[in-house]
């Protein structure tokens, strides 16, 4: 009896949705940061908004508020007939794995993690490569030979950023000093601009003149402080050069928007593929930002050096150590 009831309820709800046969019915499940986190989730949001604008196809969305809701939301999307369903962030990997098994006919995509199932597309990035390049830029630009890193929450992913950054800096200046601070150990560290500002100040006080923030909303404080102190800062994930024009040296780009956009677009165009997509420099999944706001800061020499290193990495001549391959930054 309960089942009939559920079925009836589901049917009722389905009939109210406007999905027509020709169009896909995509869905996205944002993670705890929320879709306006100025960082990762927002990148995904921008990607799916772009898809919506281009195709006119609207999507379902949900922002989870606790661990258990991830699975619940993904399952609910699949039950409602959404396809494809995009999960944002590595934390959703176990949930995607469970739900994708229950709904083998639904296509899932997970960003920033690998779920090895025939109906799941896994998109991961080589953040260390992008960080390597901005580390190079930082060290080349630095006059003191000291560059800084402000991480968000202390987790392996952020250490991966830091490790790549450190390698890049040392690549151009073997004696470069890389000062690293993590903002905190709780998720609050993703959104603590005050603390970010304090950390940046302290690094500047110790002689740092370029600081790279991989810290979500916390970065806003870092960038502001860099501007106030006349130092340089490097943004992360999306192009944040516009936030403080003139003192934003560059931004390390991680194209989660592209990953999300592509997942919807490929499904809509009939080009869907499952499996792992590792997006590095070669695939244009990571990179560094050059635009109106920072073009005066990047000299031709820097540009040339970075372009060369980038080519070497793409060609495999230069390899950047991935912190998460062995949970250590020894290279």
């Amino acid at each position, binding site marked *: 009896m*309960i*089942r009939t*009831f*559920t079925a009836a*309820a589901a049917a009722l*709800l389905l009939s109210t949705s406007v999905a027509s046969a020709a169009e896909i019915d995509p869905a996205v499940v944002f993670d*705890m940061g*929320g879709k306006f986190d100025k960082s990762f989730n927002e990148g995904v949001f921008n990607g799916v908004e772009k898809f919506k604008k281009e195709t006119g196809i609207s999507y379902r*969305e*949900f*922002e*989870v*508020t*606790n*661990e*258990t*809701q991830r*699975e*619940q*939301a993904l399952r*609910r999307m699949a039950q409602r007939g959404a396809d494809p369903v995009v999960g944002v962030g*590595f*934390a959703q*990997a*176990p949930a995607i794995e469970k739900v994708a098994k229950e709904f083998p006919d639904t296509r899932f995509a997970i960003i*920033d*993690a690998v779920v090895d199932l025939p109906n799941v597309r896994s998109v991961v990035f080589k953040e260390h490569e992008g960080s390597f390049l901005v580390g190079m830029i930082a060290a080349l630009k630095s006059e003191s030979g000291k560059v800084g890193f402000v991480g968000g*929450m*202390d*987790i*392996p*992913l952020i250490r991966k950023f830091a490790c790549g950054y450190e390698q890049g800096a040392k690549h151009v200046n073997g004696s470069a000093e890389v000062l690293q601070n993590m903002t905190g*150990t*709780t*998720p609050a560290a993703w959104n603590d601009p005050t603390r970010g500002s304090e950390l940046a100040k302290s690094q500047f006080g110790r002689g740092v003149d370029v600081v790279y923030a991989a810290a979500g909303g916390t970065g806003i404080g870092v960038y502001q402080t860099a501007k106030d102190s006349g130092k340089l800062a490097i943004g992360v994930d999306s192009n944040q050069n516009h936030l403080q024009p003139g003192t934003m040296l560059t931004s390390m780009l991680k194209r989660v928007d592209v990953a999300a956009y592509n997942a919807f677009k490929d499904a809509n165009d009939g080009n869907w593929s499952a499996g792992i997509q590792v997006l590095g420099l070669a695939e244009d999944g990571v990179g560094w930002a050059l635009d109106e706001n920072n073009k005066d800061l990047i000299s031709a020499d820097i540009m040339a050096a970075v372009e060369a290193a980038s080519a070497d990495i793409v060609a495999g001549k230069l390899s950047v150590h991935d912190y*998460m*391959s062995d*949970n250590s930054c020894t290279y």
Partner: protein
Amino acid sequence: MAAAPGKIPRWVDVALIPLVNIALAFLVSGVILWTIDVNPLTALETILFGAFGYDEAIGYTLYYTTNFVFTGLAVAVAFHAGLFNIGGEGQAYIGGLGVGLGILLMDSSLPFLLILPISILLSAAFGAAWAAIPAYLQAYRGSHIVITTIMFNFIASALMVYLMVNVLIQPGSMSPESREFAPQGQLPFMHEVFGWFGLEVTRSPLNLSVVWAAICCVLVWAFIWRTRWGYEIRTVGANETAGVYAGIDPRRVIVLAMCVSGALAGFVGINEVMGVHHRLLLNFTAGYGFTGIAVSLMGRNHPIGIVLASLLFGMLYQGGAELAFEEPKVTRELVVTIQGLVILFSGALAYMMKRPIERAYLRIAGGFQRPAEQEG
């Protein structure tokens, strides 16, 4: 000499006033929904249907309820000793750590029937230990327990992050999570349990720990009202001077009550770590420890009240998520606002309506007695 107040029956205090408070919270929520062009009645229907309308929804609601029962009981036991335990969150977190560590060590060698009681003991012991430190500081050093328990939430959180990021993380894993427990280290889901009896129920995170929560309600009731330790806890909580007069050492009572309280909060770990996630991870407490304070206040620190209040909050969590799911205009922040309003009205402002309601009751009751004389 206090002037003898009129007799207010108990049901006014324990049932009518909470119901009025909830109604007020929903009323204010309704106004907010109305201003963003969401029909409040439809929203209420969505919440109710989303929380109780079908078996999966009930499963989720009861799953949340389980957590709230544990943390609500925890706050209540401390409250009977006159202590405000704000540290349920941290105690739950550390309780979960105990469960996780134990299962990671045991699940390859011991059968489920041994792992289960050991895990329950571990969650209790870890949670109790985490509560015992602030308790000791309060009892023997005079540090205020509200401050220390809050501090201990932060310490618990930092400790967990450190352990998860540096020690317990599954090698090669992106997120700071331990490996998944082997099947004998997993508490069966209720849909699996029903499955054993041939009943088919949609899957939900509801697991056997809901049964343990029910048992804990009975145990806590018996402990507080039927044992001499409970008697001593209540004596010290109600009147510490009388406790000293009666030869009860308030310091020992404080430590005892907090240990029991911490153990109960630690059981959240059974539900979350052993029952739902089957691995050790970060942030599984998700604020349940804090909500437990509201649950306990609303439930008048009695297990029956706590069960009802937990159901209400379970409904708000699950129904609220459904509302955000169904109604794009309702963001998760708004859902939190609605939950917050219920906490505000039934917790912080719990006694705001007490006087008016009692006065209204007396007027009505008095009217029944002397209908003819009822006038100015």
